[in-house]
């Protein structure tokens, strides 16, 4: 008995040592997520073997319903469905790529938008894409999409003729930006819309009603999705594009890394940032770091003393070690934020101020505010599932302790953190760390409004999104933002100026700490060409249609 245990334990030790020392990791583990047998024999064309692309992705499918979709499945939706138009990355010659709309125009007052649709587009189920289908989709999305709020400015959608749709707005808004959102904008086959209205489980097996280049062939929940190309795609097919795309759903970044270096997949969506060096030194891969859509914000609870005093909040903003936080939390993949708008997203501006890391100034401000040696405590909550927040939160604690402010770190699952923040004011956190991104590429009416626009007459001043977790209400800021958002279409120059004013007010009043904008890192094998990063669609990672084997 004892001997058996001993042998067993020795084996275990050996196993632990082997896994931990195998840093070279040239051999992938026996995960063997090879596709099930269903995939190969079904339709063998007489021509050469189909070109298959294998991808590891963490993104789960919470729903296949394109109208309800408001989560990670966006990574796949964008390959199966299309919007009227797609927004191009910053710096492109054209702001938009026309997809299902060929052209569009807005009235001078920004209240009427007309879209001229592309002709000859078929849905995957054979239906024709026309004005009626667009109206039906948008109406469904205005009614019950996961992100239906983005359509709030729209009063009505009307069919002008077979290929012309007119949107009437109740107030001026950049409808082109809204229509290019990744959520709640897909144009869906009327047949599929009817089917899901009759049977809410219609999409569960992995059927689709899109116009995009790929169609869902099979779906095994939490394991694998097989996409095959839609032969009648309006954009046409060139030789060399992939016939099939196999997506393995792999939740652990470390596993994805091993699958990629072991050759089990061609592309991985997430590589642990600290391991990017492994690929930078490997001649078979290119590592591409790009600005992204995300930033980290820390909300001060302005309802709690002494955080109600702007001087105290400024002092704490000076006591944040921004450089170390980027080095540790983001492994260097980040840049210090200028306000809550991530770099590259409208209305980001280099004219917005930043705090430096300056403990002397922080101490001075604290004593000006009547707290000469700190002497108060702060309860800081963060999402325990967010590795970056878990990594940099202790740095805030140590830095604040140097100015006499004691921090209690409270990690909790995001949902609990969220509930606490919306609950009883006395029990709320004093500081809330949040990773934020705009729903569509307009951080003016999203980030700036959602996170800092206080509404209502009495605390906690929560607005419709509930994301203003500083519970801060400032009439000057609200006024600036109202003007800026109202002028976005009619007077873009002044709108930008008002946004900058609003952001500088925000930085000065410091209801929150603006930590850093993240950068995305992509590890692309040299054997695959065509990868184009689009900052506006961070959750898509890969547009399959763009990719092809390198020659």
């Amino acid at each position, binding site marked *: 008995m004892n001997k058996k245990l001993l042998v067993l334990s020795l084996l275990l030790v050996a196993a632990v040592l082997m896994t931990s020392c195998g*840093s070279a*990791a040239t051999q992938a583990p026996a995960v063997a997520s090879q596709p099930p047998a269903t995939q190969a024999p079904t339709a063998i064309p007489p021509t050469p073997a189909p070109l298959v692309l294998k991808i590891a992705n963490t993104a789960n499918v919470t729903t296949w319903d394109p109208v309800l979709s408001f989560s990670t499945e966006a990574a796949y939706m964008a390959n199966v469905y299309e919007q009227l138009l797609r927004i191009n990355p910053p710096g492109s010659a054209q702001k938009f790529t026309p997809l299902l709309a060929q052209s569009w125009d807005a009235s001078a007052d920004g209240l009427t938008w007309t879209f001229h649709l592309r002709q000859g587009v078929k849905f995957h189920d054979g239906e024709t894409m026309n004005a009626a289908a667009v109206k039906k989709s948008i109406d469904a999305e205005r009614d019950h999409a996961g992100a239906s709020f983005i359509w709030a400015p729209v009063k009505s959608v009307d069919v002008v003729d077979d290929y012309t749709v007119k949107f009437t707005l109740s107030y001026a808004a950049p409808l082109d930006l809204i229509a290019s959102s990744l959520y709640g904008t897909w144009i869906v086959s009327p047949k599929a819309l009817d089917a899901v209205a009759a049977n809410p489980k219609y999409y569960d097996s992995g059927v689709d009603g899109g116009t995009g280049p790929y169609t869902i062939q099979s779906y095994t929940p939490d394991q694998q999705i097989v996409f095959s190309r839609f032969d009648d795609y309006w954009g046409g097919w060139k030789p060399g594009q992939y016939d099939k795309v196999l997506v393995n759903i792999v939740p652990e970044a*470390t596993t994805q890394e091993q699958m990629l270096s072991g050759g089990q997949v061609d592309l991985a969506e997430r590589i642990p940032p600290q391991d990017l060096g492994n690929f930078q030194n490997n001649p078979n891969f290119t590592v591409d770091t790009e600005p992204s859509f995300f930033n980290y914000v820390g909300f001060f609870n302005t309802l709690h003393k002494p955080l109600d005093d702007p001087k105290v909040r400024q002092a704490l903003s000076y006591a944040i070690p921004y450089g170390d936080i980027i080095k540790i939390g983001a492994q260097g993949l980040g840049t210090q934020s200028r306000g809550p708008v991530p770099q590259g997203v409208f209305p980001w501006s280099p004219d917005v101020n930043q705090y430096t890391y300056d403990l002397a100034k922080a101490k001075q401000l604290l004593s000006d505010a009547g707290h000469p040696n700190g002497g108060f405590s702060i309860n800081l909550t963060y999402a325990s599932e967010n590795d970056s927040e878990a990594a940099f*939160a*202790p740095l805030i604690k140590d830095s604040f302790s140097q100015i006499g402010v004691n921090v209690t*770190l409270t990690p909790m699952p995001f949902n609990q953190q969220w509930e606490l923040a919306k609950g009883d004011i006395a029990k709320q956190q004093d500081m809330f760390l949040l990773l934020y991104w705009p729903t569509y590429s307009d951080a003016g009416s999203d980030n700036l409004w959602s996170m800092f626009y206080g509404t209502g007459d009495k605390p906690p001043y929560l607005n419709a999104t509930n994301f203003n977790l500083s519970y801060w209400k400032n009439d000057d800021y609200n006024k600036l933002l109202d003007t800026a958002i109202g002028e976005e279409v009619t007077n873009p120059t002044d709108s930008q100026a008002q946004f900058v004013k609003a952001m500088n007010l925000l930085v000065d009043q410091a209801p929150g700490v603006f930590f850093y904008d993240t950068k995305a890192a992509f590890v692309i094998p040299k054997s695959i060409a065509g990868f184009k990063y689009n900052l506006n669609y961070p959750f898509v990672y890969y547009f399959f249609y763009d990719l092809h084997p390198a020659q």
Partner: protein
Amino acid sequence: MEIDTTVSVPQVESTRTFRHVLAVIARDPLSLASTIVIVLFVLIALFAYQVAPHPDEGAGKTNVSNTMLAPSWDHPFGTDLLGRDMLSRVIIGAQPALIVPIGVVLFAVLIGAPLGAIAGYKGGWVDEIIMRVTDLFLAFPSLLLAMAIASALGRGLDKAAIALVVSWWPWYTRLTRGVTISLKERYFVEAAQAVGVNDWVIIARHILPNTISPVLVQATVDLGTVILAMGGLAFLGLGTQPPAPDWGLMVSDGRTYILNQWWIATFPGIAIFVVVLAFNLLGDTLRDIFDPRQYR
């Protein structure tokens, strides 16, 4: 130590004396080694702040300039993402990871075993009530129940410990009850009943001591599970609160770095592994000693 060690008195020595236990353990190198390991770890845990080379870093102070150093003479276990000395983290992490689970299992046994003995011995409605209550607890997976209780109580190591006690005691009740039912039919119990010994005395004197060996085995096995459950609760933010260290927490923190910075998860993992194995081996030996059927 004692004076009479040289004098061999010809008498039937009880097998349950402390000296006898020590003698048996000393004879078997494996159980000797595991005992030494456990004693060593407990001592380290008790005097953690005296033993650790960097007690402030062990307790959570960050030192960013030392981030992710590989094991070296200065840092035998390397440093973690925040530049903290891993050796100090592991030593100070022994407190929540080792001492608290020992306490949890001890309390679970102290609550569970007597209840099980009473239920098994008394039978009837007493048995029904006690066992239905335990069924209620056993209907949920222990970790899930502990999570629910811990989140109801709030955050903190103490609350996590209470939650674990609450979800672990019914296992000992059920175990003890089963053993008691078979013991009840034995002659020594019937003899005690026949001379009119009080029920409570029978339970305390004759039943409970005879349930020790299965309870002990169960307890040693559970220690490992409780250590892991503790880590699980800490991961969810319900147990040890960062930046305080905890083995389970360190393993889960280190798992994303396993390929290049293997030392972050490995050393706390080895600590858990060694301690759990030592408890298992010792439990094995103790069972041999306490088993009334095995007089050596």
